[in-house]
């Protein structure tokens, strides 16, 4: 509340979902710890109470990549462990319930893109995340399904993690290692550079795991829902959506790109209470 011309006026300041930031930091640091411990363990100096899991062992997408090989032969693709399949199952369950919450809350590559994006937001302000022409953007959004099909095909036919050579997530946490292919480093560099202009460019246009999880947006149990009766149609929810979803034109967000970040809800940018909610039921 501020006092203006003798009147107390309620001023709305867009908030952010701070608990999401905390969760993102937690998982980022957890993955860093796992990667460092794995390197230490290989030289015989691992942290005693931590298993020397590799980055692949804690990546749920590995579970998706190995599915065909597992179904066909009972074997896992080279470098993939049972934990990847378990995580893939858990993340799928989470996604069916809450949408791609893994992308918006857990994935460290998404987190790093958001961090870089803060620079872009400061530099370009309202223009940030609105550089790509809408028509081109709409087409590019389907590119990640092509990437997914390619990754699944080459993994199934080769029995190896071909995608590792192009994976910016693997490069991000192994950039100092000789295991990382230059192509992955280049893609990571391009992704981080684009993040200055576009929020989460890898997630929007290329992430094959995002493509898998994005499909759950079509039938998930909890969805972003907007109440038309209380909505002031100020467009705040759409303007600040990191994935550029026009939330203010929908009553239920079923967009395949939603990452369940909740930044559009009444808990964050929407200034009207109980207007944009994350709910399993209906809204008045």
């Amino acid at each position, binding site marked *: 509340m501020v006092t203006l011309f003798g009147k107390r006026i309620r001023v709305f300041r867009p908030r952010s979902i701070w608990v999401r930031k905390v969760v993102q930091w937690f998982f980022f640091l957890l993955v860093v710890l796992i990667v460092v411990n794995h390197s230490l363990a290989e030289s015989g100096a691992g942290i005693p109470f931590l298993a020397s899991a*590799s980055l692949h062992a804690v990546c749920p997408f590995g579970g998706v990549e190995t599915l065909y090989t597992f179904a066909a032969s009972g*074997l896992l693709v080279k470098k993939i462990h*049972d934990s990847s399949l378990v995580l893939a199952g858990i993340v799928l369950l*989470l996604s069916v319930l809450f949408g791609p919450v893994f992308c918006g809350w857990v994935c460290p590559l998404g987190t790093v893109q958001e961090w870089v994006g803060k620079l872009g937001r400061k530099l370009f302000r309202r223009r940030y995340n609105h550089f790509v022409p809408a028509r081109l953007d709409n087409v590019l959004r389907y590119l990640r399904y092509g990437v997914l099909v390619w990754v699944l095909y080459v993994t199934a*036919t080769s029995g190896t993690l071909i995608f590792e050579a192009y994976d910016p997530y693997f490069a991000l946490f192994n950039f100092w290692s000789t295991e990382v292919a230059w192509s992955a480093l280049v893609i990571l560099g391009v992704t981080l550079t684009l993040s200055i202009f576009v929020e989460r460019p890898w997630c929007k246009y290329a992430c094959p795991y995002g493509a898998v999880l994005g499909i759950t947006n079509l039938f998930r149990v909890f969805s972003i829902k907007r109440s038309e009766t209380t909505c002031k149609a100020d467009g705040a929810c759409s303007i600040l959506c990191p994935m550029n979803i026009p939330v203010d034109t929908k009553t239920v967000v079923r967009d395949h790109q939603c990452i369940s970040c909740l930044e559009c809800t009444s*808990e964050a940018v929407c200034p009207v209470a109980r207007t944009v909610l*994350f*709910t*399993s*039921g209906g809204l008045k």
Partner: protein
Amino acid sequence: MTLTSKSLAVTLFIVLFGGIAFSSAMGWWATESTKVPVTFTDGVFAGQANPADIRGSYTFGDIAKSFNVSPDVLAQAFEITGEEPAAFAVKELEAIYLDSGFEIGTASVRLFVAYYTGLPFDTTGQEIYMPQTATKILLAKGDLTPDQITYLEQYTVTLGEAAPIEQQNVEATPVAAETPVSITEEYVVKGKTTFGELISWGVSQDVIEQLIGAPLPDPAVGVKDYASANGLNFETLKPALQVEVDKVKP
């Protein structure tokens, strides 16, 4: 039911870590290889370890436990010298052969173990390269099928250096499909000469068994070591073997 960010965060942690705890309790959670490959589930090889599941993290010792292939044989096949071949990790092969121009790594070990043990292994559509030393050992065993021999002839590479390699990169050239695997070193029986080398030089298994008075031992075993361990006089055995080598050498 409406969720706030806090309740979503709590639910996320419960489902994620609860799921991991549950899978761990059920024995499904494994972030590291158990070093025990899966077994064939049907057919005549049911219950036996599957070479296709050998991982880069396996050591030669791990392979020995599951497939009964001696670490010394693997070390000789892939030209690894060192104090403890059993501790050598398969994934280190790729770095050693990095400059060879051919990928010699985990897949090569899988193929070697499969051919060495007679276990099934599907090479369809795969280009799995094999160092010449490994091929020599496999040929010396004498129980490969014509298709397996053809595959090896196609994908065996000759190393630039005949000397054993220890943690160094090597250059290699492929053996042409129609060219039989050949040996470039001298045909002289020495203390380090193995039975596998004798066979690859053309000495028949029967002749060797006749001279040592016993069935042919593991091809990776050195003649001198065998003689010492079995009470034979190497100084007597060596010239006898050399005579046979001289008869058959190209």
